[in-house]
């Protein structure tokens, strides 16, 4: 996959647990896990907005583009 999700790194930087983020976002931990493991097919702007707001970061901090070899 070309887009890598660095949500784990941001969570570690903010010293926040996945459960807490999921709870504050109002989504299930299962859905957050799908996002974290890169299994998600798409992400809504509203979800991205919530993550950025809660973690106080930019979209680029949680997503990274890498070229496929």
């Amino acid at each position, binding site marked *: 996959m070309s887009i890598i999700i660095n949500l784990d790194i941001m969570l570690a930087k903010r010293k926040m647990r996945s459960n807490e983020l999921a709870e504050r976002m109002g*989504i299930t931990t299962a*859905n*957050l896990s799908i996002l974290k493991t890169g*299994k*998600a*097919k*798409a*992400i*809504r702007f509203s*979800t991205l907005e919530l993550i950025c707001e809660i973690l106080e970061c930019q979209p680029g901090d949680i997503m990274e583009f890498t070229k496929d070899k």
Partner: protein
Amino acid sequence: MKKIIILNWVLKIFIALLILAVPINEVLRYNLSNEAITLMYKDSIFGNFSPYVMFLRIAILIFALFNIQKGLQGFIKEGFFNFKSSERFNRSGYLLLFLSVSGIIITLLGMNQSQEVETLSNIIIDLLLLAIGIGLLAFSDVIKKGNSIETENNLTI
């Protein structure tokens, strides 16, 4: 969903009736004399083998209907867009296509021996079956596409 449940039951009853019709027909035929049987099938292109060809066609029809019924059951159990139902409808579509094409060929081959009205009505029924078969194949594709859209939607966070 209520209509699908009703259709599922209608198909179950229809399949049961078709399965019952085969031995009943065989018993009735068994009671006939050899001359009567020969006379009955003298106009048919398959001669005395006609009932066996008919049984084969009924068996294919039962199998196709069984697949449609299982597809509907899949709708009831797993929701509308599931891969199993798509596969079942696809299979039944091909079976109905085979049944209709073979029916048209048989009707056309035996055209000289049967009446025009009978030939025409047989061809119309076979064409209807052909349309249903193609419709089922298209329906199967719609379900398959729906399944992938649903999966993508579920994986959109």
